[in-house]
């Protein structure tokens, strides 16, 4: 066997070994295309270890990453969507809901839980972008309010991870009014001195951006997230010029004074636990806790 054959045969061996690995154990970074081992990705909360790209994650997974092990209790799961307007575009709203429910395993685009972060009691909510683009309709608004009310009654901080295309068109003006509803409950929290931390993740636009997501006592963005009122395509069509590089990305928002800080997902737990403990004048959080996911 010459040296070339040696190398190629060793490659073949690796190739056959790969076949024995069960499917679905490998993921691909949607930015740098690196092939990544899923258990490793879970440990890094779906942030690419090669390029630091923050990949999209589901609402439930987000909360499981965020909250301490075995501390969570879900809030508002009893609130479920209905199609009051009998809305039908190319598809029926009812069918779109069914599809989204099947795809995500969630009843609607927001999941809320009470729990702890590094030992600090909190209420947390997260949007699911895979559920009709994380759009905000009546259920999202009502669950958000119920979660905020738990935070109010328990006097614990409220944290919301948003990712959304905006208000849900299929619920028409009901959706628009969720902007007012969620903003009003946050005003109540503010009056009572309950901290609200808004974490803006990729992407957060439209009616969600123009209501609850911008109303944090502290606004945190994940790196390189698209955040804005209007989507880039709409802006481009309106102003008829090319948008500058990095426009509407987290770093742009930080520079323009819209967000307080950009925090890597892998450091989100520690950062939020620290700031909310300080805002509530509580002792420094105990860092030994593990997230539910681990």
């Amino acid at each position: 066997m010459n040296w070339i054959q040696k190398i190629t045969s060793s490659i073949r061996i690796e190739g056959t070994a790969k076949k024995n690995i069960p499917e679905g154990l490998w993921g691909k970074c949607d930015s740098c295309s690196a092939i990544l081992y899923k258990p490793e990705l879970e440990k890094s909360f779906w942030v690419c270890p090669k390029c630091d790209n923050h990949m999209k994650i589901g609402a439930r997974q987000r909360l499981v990453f965020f909250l301490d092990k075995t501390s969570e209790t879900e809030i508002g799961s009893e609130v479920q969507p209905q199609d009051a307007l009998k809305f039908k575009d190319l598809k029926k709203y009812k069918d779109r809901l069914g599809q989204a429910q099947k795809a995500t395993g969630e009843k609607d685009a927001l999941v809320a839980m009470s729990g702890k972060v590094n030992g600090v009691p909190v209420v947390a909510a997260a949007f699911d972008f895979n559920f009709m683009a994380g759009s905000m309709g009546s259920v999202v608004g009502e669950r958000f309010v119920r979660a905020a009310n738990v935070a109010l009654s328990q006097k614990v901080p409220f944290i919301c991870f948003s990712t959304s295309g905006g208000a849900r068109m299929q619920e028409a003006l009901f959706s628009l009014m969720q902007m007012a509803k969620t903003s009003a409950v946050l005003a109540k929290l503010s009056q009572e001195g309950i901290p609200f931390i808004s974490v803006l993740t990729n992407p957060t636009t439209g009616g969600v951006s123009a209501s609850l997501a911008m109303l944090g006592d502290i606004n945190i963005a994940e790196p390189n997230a698209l955040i804005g009122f209007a989507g880039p395509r709409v802006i481009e069509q309106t102003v008829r010029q090319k948008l500058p590089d990095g426009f509407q990305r987290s770093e742009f928002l930080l520079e323009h004074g819209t967000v307080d800080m950009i925090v890597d997902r892998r450091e989100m737990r520690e950062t939020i636990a620290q700031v909310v403990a300080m805002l509530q004048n509580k002792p420094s959080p105990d860092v030994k806790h593990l997230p539910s996911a681990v």
Partner: protein
Amino acid sequence: MDLNFLEFEQPIAELEAKIEELRYVGNDNDLNIGEEITQLQAKSKQLTKQIFSNLSPWQISQIARHPRRPYTLDYIEHIFTEFNELHGDRAFADDPAIVGGIARIEGRPVMVIGQQKGRDTKEKIRRNFGMPQPEGYRKALRLMKMAERFNMPVMTFIDTPGAYPGIEAEERGQSEAIAKNLFEMSQLKIPVICTVIGEGGSGGALAIGVGDRVMMLQYSTYSVISPEGCASILWKSADYASTAAEVMGITSERLLELGLIDEVIKEPLGGAHRKPENMAGIIRRALVRSLADIESMPVQGMLDKRYERLMAYGTFKC
């Protein structure tokens, strides 16, 4: 085609043209054609009644955007006295797409705020077609907070295609400006009455639309997205705008049914632009009546009611 009339009003336009023609002839000679004119006028009125009794949501949205439709400043002129316009957000600029100031309504000092569209091309551009920048919303908030300090009720007039989607608007925090208004308006310790007079375009409308009472003129619209926008996203073509207008339920009548607004203010036959001064009078009476209703409650009661109503928005199973 007469620009005073929309496409579906063309039969009325033709009759009106005929009446004009006869009048002209009538002035020219001694023929007694008064009777015929009266007859034609009656016919025109009947036709208008007939057409307007059965308008589609899409036709209504065209009336809401009618080039002759009265705008905020037109109403201010006829509803209020001593209007003193106040400018600027005290931080960046004055946004001409939102006007505001102090004025009296039947002698009572109030704060008036509204989106303002332009009538001719130059004015349209100056007013940015009624699409506010963040500083417009911040000016509105500044005036509302000032009204609160001086215990003046706030009356807003909504008429916008939406908040402006531009580069500078994003740089200056369009989202934050809108969100902040929703947040603050929910807790202003003074009566807030909002009236949609034309187009209620999404978050850009709602940003001056949270209050104790939300009223809509009969042929105004209020929606989460324009029918064209909705159609181009969900039907992949703006040609379906009329269908989108239908399913979204953007008309005053439908929104009253759904419990999303409190009152529909009837318009004169043929729409507000046919009799702007009459319309203003009707709005003034509605405003005064609403204010009296709201003020019959103590301030805390008013705030609780506003909050309860905001919390009640939505439709879900539970």
